[in-house]
């Protein structure tokens, strides 16, 4: 899922300062699962904003609304009937959602309430961890199912580097060395011979280096 962190209340206040009518828009997908921008978090931020405005004597109208996905225009369309009543949309979706809402309502100002951080997994309730950087060329078949691009701080294709110590990364003692994890896993799988194969230089043009990416599946188009 896409994981994010909510921006600080101070930062959010600074963004919405010029406005009096705010549509606080949540998303029911990834940001709900990682507890940052779903219906509950919309409720908490709306409550915070109402308490703040009451305390400061500022006029501020907040409408809470959460749609199924902010990355699909069918769902974004659902707010069309009332979106014009608000000066600004404060989106609690990931960066993709914020942008797509802005694309659909070109006359509305759309602001981000969260910082989108990574593609990851839920380690336990309340703890998420990065697993994928969406580089466009997956090599998990060669690395025991552990991604050196996302899990190694240097994204080394043939690691580990000299900074690894006792299985931890030099960047942070709490962070596992991605290549240590790969070697351990290959050992467990009896595939350590794969480690001896040199992984060739990566073509980063399939990643962000090739510019914004797009996928078209012709048979699925209408």
């Amino acid at each position, binding site marked *: 899922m896409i994981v994010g962190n909510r921006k*600080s*209340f*101070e930062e959010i206040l600074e963004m919405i300062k010029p406005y009096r009518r705010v549509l606080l828009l949540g998303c029911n997908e990834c940001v709900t699962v990682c507890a940052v921008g779903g219906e509950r978090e919309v409720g*908490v931020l709306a*409550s*915070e904003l109402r*308490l*703040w405005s*009451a*305390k400061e004597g500022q006029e501020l109208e907040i409408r809470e609304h959460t749609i199924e996905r902010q990355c699909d225009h069918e769902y974004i369309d659902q707010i069309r009937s009332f979106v014009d009543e608000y000066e600004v949309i404060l989106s609690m979706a990931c960066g993709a959602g914020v942008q797509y809402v802005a694309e659909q309502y070109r006359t509305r100002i759309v602001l981000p309430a969260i910082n989108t951080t990574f593609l990851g997994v839920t380690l336990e309730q309340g703890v998420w961890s990065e697993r994928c950087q969406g580089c466009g060329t997956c090599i998990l078949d060669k690395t025991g199912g552990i991604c050196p691009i996302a899990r190694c701080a240097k994204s080394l294709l043939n690691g580990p580097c000299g900074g690894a110590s006792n299985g931890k990364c030099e960047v942070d003692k709490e962070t596992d060395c991605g290549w240590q994890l790969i070697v351990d896993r290959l050992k467990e799988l009896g595939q350590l011979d794969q480690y001896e194969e040199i992984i060739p230089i990566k073509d980063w043009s399939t990643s962000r280096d090739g510019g914004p990416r797009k996928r078209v599946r012709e048979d699925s188009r209408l």
Partner: protein
Amino acid sequence: MRLHYPTNVKIAKIPCTGRVDNLLILKAFESGVDGVYLAGCLEGECHFLEGNLRARKRVEYVKSLLDEVGLGGARLEMYNMSSAQGQRFAEVAREMTEKIRALGPSPVRKKVKG
């Protein structure tokens, strides 16, 4: 025991403090209350094992939210007591009332628009 405690304390009954959601506390403040405290069971004696410990974590988090919005986290507290500690219940009610009285009325009292 016929214990007395301040009449300004209004009790919201819940099956376990673990049921208390962050938003529930914030809504209480939106409704204009001056302070909120949770009276959970003694730590280590939760019938649901960790309900009161979870509640404490949420209280700490909501305190930080109240600080952010300028109400002050001191208006929210978590207490632990057993159902047999009526004396302690009355004592906490007095303690919290005095604390909130010292802080003054909530600055958002009756001002929040639904």
